[in-house]
């Protein structure tokens, strides 16, 4: 602890950088131990309850010791986070320094005098001392009795001491009904305790707080940004996948014969989407404040859920790649995502996204959130066998349908254009051989 043998130094406490801040996290240190610091320079970045704020240094000197390392969380306001000294030679003497456990909020105390913390914590001016014994569960805030103005008036008029009454209003506030009840009960006889001993404390919840991972933060902020700024609308269409399935099993039998990996429905969907984007390039665009950028490349992101979070690696130039290449790339990227080894070039530069919850999870149909700055995202549901009315009475056929939903940024893609795209997509899915053309 800070013995008196230490040279003069300043203890820098966690600053209160917002009026409601009680604790903070250290996001980043901009100075290292031993660095020279001058007034106005940024020491570190502090995450308050509201924002990340730069904490400025006020003294000239040297940063001798960082007590709370980068990433430290929930540091109480006033808790020592660092030590500065005036003389460079003194830096070394704080190597093994641990702050004295004084949690009292008084940083930059120059003298290390271990004087007992004299300052009294802001004492609430106490109201007249009432015997407290009779109030078992008034809410925790000090001596103040919370009551509505009407209740106060009523209590005053009837000479009822507020401290004898247990509030049933919001947060234990005394309301008119409580006074009425008290008057009624005390009128009837003796001091019948209020019968309902309402336990103001709800049974404690059992929970665990999971800290945000980086990917969670990014996902959260980008999706919130998307939903808040992009005017979404959704178009759903059913696509008959009988021919697609037939083609797939045909192709897979070739693949098996040659020892290749099988082609999935999703690979076909990616290919069809890429070709549809060629046909309707308006959907292959990005909104900016000044112009709409229409891309000549068709790079399709594929959403992959992993244990670490949601990744969307990209298949570049999907319109110009064959199904085996697409299949191979998607498999590889998904593998990399699971191993958390995606490189920036593996997920950057996408122009359109496909999310498939149908195949792996059996989700019938859903609406995805546009992946900014892209203009559209395709949500693929699960294929389902249906009965389709035939030509004559009592005639019917079976067919498999896969519903897909396109979410569009209306600033870029108008409804009819989105519909145009879906028509093209449906065309490729329902007549998969046309993809060869």
């Amino acid at each position, binding site marked *: 602890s800070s013995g008196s043998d230490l040279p003069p130094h300043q203890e820098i*406490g966690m*600053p*209160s*950088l*917002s*009026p409601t801040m009680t604790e903070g996290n250290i996001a980043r240190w901009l100075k290292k131990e031993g660095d020279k610091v*001058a*007034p*106005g*320079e*940024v020491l570190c970045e502090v995450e308050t309850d509201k924002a990340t*704020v*730069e904490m400025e240094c*006020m*003294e000239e000197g040297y940063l001798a010791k960082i007590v709370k390392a980068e990433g430290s969380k929930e540091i109480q*306001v*006033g808790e020592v986070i660092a030590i500065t000294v005036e003389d460079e030679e003194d830096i070394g003497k704080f190597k093994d320094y641990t702050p004295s456990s004084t949690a009292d*909020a*008084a*940083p*930059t*105390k*120059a*003298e290390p005098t271990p004087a007992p913390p*004299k*300052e009294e914590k*802001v*004492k609430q*001016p106490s*109201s*007249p001392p009432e015997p407290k014994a009779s109030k078992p569960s008034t809410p925790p805030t000090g001596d103040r009795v919370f009551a509505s*103005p009407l209740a*106060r008036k009523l209590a*005053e008029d009837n000479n009822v001491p507020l401290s004898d009454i247990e509030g049933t209003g919001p947060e234990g506030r005394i309301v008119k009904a409580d006074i009425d009840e008290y008057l009624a009960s005390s009128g009837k006889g003796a001091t019948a305790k209020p019968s309902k001993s309402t336990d103001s404390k709800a049974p404690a919840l059992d929970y665990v707080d999971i800290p945000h991972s980086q990917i969670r933060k990014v996902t959260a902020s980008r999706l919130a940004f998307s939903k808040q700024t992009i005017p979404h609308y959704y178009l759903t269409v059913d696509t008959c996948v009988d021919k697609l399935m037939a083609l797939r099993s045909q192709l897979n039998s070739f693949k098996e014969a040659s020892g290749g990996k099988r082609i999935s429905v999703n690979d076909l969907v990616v290919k069809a989407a890429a070709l549809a984007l060629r046909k309707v390039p308006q959907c292959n665009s990005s909104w900016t404040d000044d112009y709409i950028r229409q891309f000549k490349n068709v790079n399709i992101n594929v959403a992959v859920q992993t244990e670490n979070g949601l990744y969307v690696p990209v298949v570049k130039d999907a319109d110009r790649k064959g199904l085996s290449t697409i299949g191979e790339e998607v498999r590889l990227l998904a593998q990399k995502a699971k191993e958390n080894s995606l490189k920036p070039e593996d997920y950057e530069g996408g122009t359109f996204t496909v999310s498939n919850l149908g195949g792996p999870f059996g989700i019938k149909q859903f609406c995805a959130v546009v992946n900014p700055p892209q203009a559209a995202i395709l949500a693929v549901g699960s294929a389902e066998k249906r009965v389709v009315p035939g030509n004559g009475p009592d005639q019917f056929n079976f067919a498999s349908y896969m519903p897909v939903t396109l979410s569009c940024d209306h600033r870029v893609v108008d409804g009819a254009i989105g519909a145009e795209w879906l028509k093209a997509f449906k065309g490729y899915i329902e007549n998969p051989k046309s993809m060869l053309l």
Partner: protein
Amino acid sequence: TIETSLPFTAHLCDPPSRSVESSSQELLDFFRTMALMRRMEIAADSLYKAKLIRGFCHLYDGQEAVAIGMEAAITKKDAIITAYRDHCIFLGRGGSLHEVFSELMGRQAGCSKGKGGSMHFYKKESSFYGGHGIVGAQVPLGCGIAFAQKYNKEEAVTFALYGDGAANQGQLFEALNISALWDLPAILVCENNHYGMGTAEWRAAKSPSYYKRGDYVPGLKVDGMDAFAVKQACKFAKQHALEKGPIILEMDTYRYHGHSMSDPGSTYRTRDEISGVRQERDPIERIKKLVLSHDLATEKELKDMEKEIRKEVDDAIAKAKDCPMPEPSELFTNVYVKGFGTESFGPDRKEVKASLP
């Protein structure tokens, strides 16, 4: 004799000479007081961040030369009235550190009995008519003080300070108009620190030449980072006000802190700008250089002086912390003028109530 580093720019008047008389004692005093002000404001910053000062708090660091230069040119009979950035003006008027920190932390020993807080410092016995919380409202009040001074033939003047943000308020022009009509000894001092609350000067003011804003009233633009330029200008302005009526002084200065404690001060300007001003225009460094170049003290002596000041400030804080908070009944005093039979009370009429004598 010291030459001011920048010439004065005048509007409707002849600027004063650039050479300022001084003494070695004055130079050292300037250094000491300004360093004390700086240290005091930095201590206030720490106290605020430790939640020992609550509510509003506006710091003066960077602008010390204005307070000190003005004080050097006038007497305690001359009145000063300012806005909420008032700690250092109060100190300049002869207030003590103990009063400052007690007031900031809401203790009985504060200059406003701990009931005013950061924005409401007063020292009537040395004609300091306060920090005022309402932007710009102190200027008409200051003109009223000047009226009283003229009426009572006191041969004194009033300095009404306001910021570049408040300079755009209508009431300033109304007060200036009547002051000019009646030739009141009012000096409007615009402390132009170039930023209002979260806003740069150029976003808020069509014409940033505040010294010319008086139109029919003369004005003078002063380097507000140079204590001697401020001193010379205030001397000149006092003379002018006594003889001819109101005048506007624009002090070109800079605040290192944000507007208030809730403004980090780095969103509307770059850190490079702040550190540039610190390096090139800092008012204390300027005096320090003068002291050193005239061999009035050694670097070591100045360092020791700073250490002494730090101790002085720390002691004042410790003393202020020991001081009790005001009594609850104080809530109801100093609200109405005594003797009118009024009664003040809180929401519960029985518990806390005070009848005024």
